[in-house]
Structure formats: C-alpha cells, structure tokens
C-alpha cells in the first residue's frame, strides 16, 4: 500500500469500525481514507456520534471491545532511530505497538482529570514515562527533562510536586500536553482537548499549541465539534457525519466556501459575534441513529437539497475542483437534477469572510 511519499507520516485507506458483531453490529466509522503530512495539522470536525473519536481510537489500536476494526489499512512512517521504516498499524503486535506508542504517536484525551492518576504527584507521571521508555536516563536527568517539558507549556517547575486536584483545568490540560510530548513523538492526537475549558484558557492553549508545533515539528490530528476553532488551528479539515467523511478541504477554503450542505449547516449553527442579529435556523432534525441509518446519503432527511438519488444511493467522496478538496454529495455530481445552490458553489466563494 502507499506511503511512498517521504513527507507523509500517516496513510489510512478504507478504514471501517463496527461496534458489536454480526447482525447487532453498528457501523461507527465507514470507509475513511486520508493521509497526513509531516508537521501538518489535520482537523476532524463532527458532532457526538459522528465517529471522530472512534476513528482515532481505531487507528491507534486503542479501541476496546465491542469495537472491531472491520476493514482498512493504516501505515505509519517511523522517525528517530527507526527513520524510514514503515509499520502496518493494523497488523502490528502488542510489542510493536508498545514500542511506538508515546515515542511515535501520543494522545491527549478530553478529560485531563480522568487521565491523570489522582494519587500521583505530577512529577511521578513524567518520571514513569521517561524511565520506562528510556532506561539510560538517571533520576536527576529525568527530573530535569520533566522541568523542561513543563516550561515548554508555560508551567513552573514546582508543579511537579503537586497533585492533579491542586491544578486548575487549564493547568492539568497543559500537563497532559507536556506529557504527550515527553518522548518527542512525530504524531500527536488530541481528542477535544479544550472542550471542558473556558474560552480564555482555550485561547491560551491553542496559541501555545501553535508555537509548540512550529518548534517541535510534530504532526497533529485535532478533534473537536467547534469548526471555527479548527479553522484557526488546522491546515486541512475533515468533516464527519454518521461515520463518514462528508467533506475534506484546506481549512480556510472550507470555512469560506463549504461544498457540503452539512458543513454549511454546521457553520450556520454558531451565532456570530458581530453584525446584525438575524434569525438563524441551524439544521432541522437530529443526527441519525446508527442502528437504523437512513438509506442513501445519511444526511438526506435533514438536507434542504435532497433529491431522489440522495434517498437511494450513497454518494462517494469525490475530488472536486482540480483536487485539493473533496465532497460526498450528489449535488456536485454533473448529473444532479438540482442546481448547486450559490452558497455551496464556486459562485458563492466571495462570502462569507470576504475575498479569497
């Protein structure tokens, strides 16, 4: 399989995950393919139940039963001492995985309070990971490295002596980020890392992430339901709905000119902070129950532009407009009986957000 381009870190093709078995199975992630370049930021946006968390748990083989990976291929290019080696993540043994976890791929979860052991001081968390993965470091070297890591995220070294409950939510999340970076991984995955924080703290952490990524050069997969946050942070954004990628585009292009009705609806679900106050409608209906997904395009019951084909046939994720972006929507098929509305076509590209 392909991971031929030396600038790619991760390549995923036709990846699917089920929860449960046989007739009871619920398809949580369906046929997801993407690749991630070195030092790039990929944003994954979607509502709860869209499969965004399941996707990354599956990719990193952290999925627990009854989650089952039913199809796909995931390749990771290693760095450091094993530079150039390519590993098949789905075929890897537990030992292989243990060798690459944290040192090649690390994860920051949403709830830092649950991720940190409440009985351990912060220092012990750092000490443990450094000791287990690099036995040559002495105790004082480990301590020094832990202090460096805390400084990286703007925390004082005395925090090492604190317990998690003594830190604020923002500080705990910073500790999690510092821990994730402890072994200099080339790929960091963050699952809603700022959702539980207030906006001021979120802002600080996001600007720190910017700096860290520029200094350390890791690739980042950032999962959130907040599309406007992703636009600021990510190079490229994938929008997921009912377990599938419905649209993928460079961040600013997606924001200024969405092509999928769901992406447009999602953006119009956030009231703006400026301009006239106008009535907004959001998206009618509610997300589908994956036990009984609608036939055809899963979004069609909520879509204003649905036509017969949408109700019967699943639209594939097709490249549009000379590549660069892709969308899974029959509206953009040349044979579509419904004309593409201005807000979803190139003609609408000057709004919102001004000229491209």
């Amino acid at each position, binding site marked *: 399989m392909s991971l031929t381009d030396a600038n790619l870190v991760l390549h995923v093709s036709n990846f699917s995950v089920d929860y449960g078995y046989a007739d009871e199975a619920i398809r949580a992630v369906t046929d997801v393919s993407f690749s991630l370049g070195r030092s790039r930021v990929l944003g994954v946006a979607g*509502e709860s139940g869209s499969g965004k968390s399941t996707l990354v748990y599956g990719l990193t083989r952290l999925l627990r039963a009854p989650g089952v990976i039913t199809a796909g291929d995931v390749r990771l290019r290693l760095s450091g001492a094993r530079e150039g080696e390519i590993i098949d993540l789905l075929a890897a043994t537990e030992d292989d995985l243990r060798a690459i976890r944290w040192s090649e791929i690390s994860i920051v979860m949403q709830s830092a309070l649950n991720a940190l052991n409440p009985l351990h001081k912060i220092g012990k968390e750092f000490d443990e990971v450094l000791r287990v993965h690099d036995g040559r470091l002495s105790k004082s070297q480990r301590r020094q490295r832990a202090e460096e890591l805390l400084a990286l995220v703007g925390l004082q070294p005395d925090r090492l002596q604190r317990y998690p409950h003594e830190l604020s939510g923002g500080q705990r999340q910073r500790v999690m980020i510092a821990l994730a970076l402890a072994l200099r991984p080339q790929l960091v995955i963050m699952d809603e890392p700022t959702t539980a924080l207030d906006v*001021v703290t979120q802002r600080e952490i996001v600007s720190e992430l910017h700096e860290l990524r520029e200094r350390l050069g890791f690739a980042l997969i950032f999962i959130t339901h*907040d599309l406007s946050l992703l636009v600021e942070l990510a190079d490229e954004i994938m929008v997921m709905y009912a377990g599938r990628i419905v649209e993928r585009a460079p961040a600013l292009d997606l924001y200024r000119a969405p092509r999928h009705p769901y992406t447009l609806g999602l953006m119009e*679900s956030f009231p703006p902070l400026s301009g006239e106050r106008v009535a907004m409608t959001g998206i009618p209906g509610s997300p589908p129950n994956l036990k009984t997904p609608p036939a055809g395009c899963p979004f069609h019951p909520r879509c204003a532009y649905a036509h017969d084909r949408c109700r019967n046939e699943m639209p594939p994720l097709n490249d549009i407009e000379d590549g660069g972006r892709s969308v899974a929507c029959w509206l953009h098929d040349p044979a579509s009986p419904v004309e593409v509305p201005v807000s979803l076509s190139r003609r609408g590209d000057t709004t*919102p957000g001004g000229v491209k």
Partner: protein
Amino acid sequence: MTTRGDIVLDARHLSRTFTARREKGFFKKKYGQRAVDDVSVTLRAGEVLAIVGESGSGKSVLARMLARIVPPTSGELWLNESQIDLSARRGIDYARHVQLVLQDPFAAINPVRGIRHTLERPLLIHGANKGDVVERSRDVLASVSLTPPDDYLERYPHELSGGQLQRVNIARGLAVNPSVLLADEPISMLDVSVRLGVLNLLRELCDTHLLAMMYITHDIASARYIADETAVMYAGQVVERARGTAIMDAPVHPYTQLLINSVPNPDHLARRDSGASEAKASGFNLDGCRFSPRCPQAMDICHGNQPPEFDLGGGHTSRCWLSATDEQRTAVSIATR
C-alpha cells in the same frame, strides 16, 4: 395581566458565602468562599437576561438562589412586587412561579419513567385536576415543537435524542405555567446542529408566553443571539451589563474584552496574538477589583479598591476603574489615604 417589560423577579444585592476549610497548616481554619457577591438582577416579562461567565464565576449559584434551592447569605428577592421571606421555607407557590431547567437532560429526567410521568408529575404536585393533566401534557409538548404529542407521551428518555429530551425538560418547566424560567446552560450538552433549534424555542416561548427568562451560558455568542440584556460575571460579581448587543459590539470592561477576543473567530485571524490573551490566571483579588491580577490595564487604584458599578448611560454599566471619572478616582484615593 402582565405586559412586556414588567418586572417579574427582582433580586437585590444577593450574596452567597460557602464555608470552606483551609487544608494547609497546623490549625485548620474555616473561611468563607464568596461564590456570589452583591449581585442584583431584574427579570422582566417577555425578556431574556443572559448571564455569561466561565466555570466558577457564580452564575449557577445565582440561578439556584433565584429558584430558592440555595438560600442566599444576604440580599432581597422580590416576586411580582412583593418581597419574599427568605428565612421561611420555599413554599410550593414560589416553585409554581419560578422554574429551573438544568443543563443535562439525561441527568435531569428520570430514566425509568415515561415522558408522560415526567410531565404529569409537576401538574399533579401543583394540584391540577386528573382530567386536565393529559390535555395539558399534550399542550406543553406541542409548545416545544414535539408533535404529534401522543408519539412522545408513551416513550422513555433513552428513546429520544438529546435535543428532543432537552425539549421535554423545558416542557416540564413550562407545565405549571410559570412566570419565570431559569435556564442553566440549556444547550451546552447538546449536539452542535440542534443547539440553535433549542435557542430559537426558548426565545419563542419567552415572546409568546411573556416569560421572564434567565439564560445562563459560557458562550457569549449565543447570548448575543438570544438576549435582551446581558450581564457578564467574573468571580461572583457582575462586571459589565448592557442591553441589546452593546456588550459584544463595544465591550468596556477588560474581562469582557478578553472574553470576546478569546472566542474562535476565523474572520479575525489577525487578532489571534493580540496582547489580551497573555493574561495568566493567578487567583482573585478580594480587596480590590477581582480581575486586577489578570488585567492588562490594571492601575494602582485597582489593587486596593473595589470598583463600584459605573453607569455608562443607556443601562450599560461596568465595574471597572477605567470607567470612572478623575474626580471619582481621586475621591477614593483620598478616602483610603
């Protein structure tokens, strides 16, 4: 008959102190934690008052005091121009007028009873006729756009989506026909795509039933969308309040400015690195302005003197020394000298 704009619930100088124990040191000392400090709010018929604040700012404690679940340490509460005796137990009559809708519908609604039970219970408690109860349940379901109501009455909470269940939660609050609805973060647990629907519903209910509504949120953009008046809380105090969209369009208090600059906004990517976000949390200042340790514009006067609410005209106030005149500041520095 109430008309739009009538004062329904008036809270004057409400404070609430929780007793906490100091853990460090040889002598464990008790000390008071002021969760809400001298907050006055007025809820008017047919209007939405939004309370915006981060977690820990005291906004939920304020709502619970208005619902009389948490008794205030001091202050007055006036309902329909008569003063409430806060030392007495909350009677059933107060609950009929003032209803609270909580954040998480999955936690707020009994999972083992059907929707019918959830809606009928408050009606029976408040003495409705058995015969009227079914009709009234259908009416309130219809008023929160769950139609046809009979499809929902026999269902259980797990059969509904989060958005639908939050509508049931709101319907339960409306069942006894209250004059005040306190909504504590009603949309933050919901899927992004259904939030706006619930917000629109709240606004519509407020307009049609002339409800006096308090909408509590950490999302200042949603406050801008729905509210007639917005108050920003920080560390237990209202730091800025204004009618309409004035707070978002022209924020005066440095905390409000920080809050607004922190909201992700792809249209203003250039603002990302503006100095305001550099402020780091380092505790509250109890002697002076609560925000002064984080404030980029803090002056000497801010650290030792609590600013009062300064009137900026048109109902816009700001609890900040920057809004004071020179005479006002001089008066304070002479008094404290």
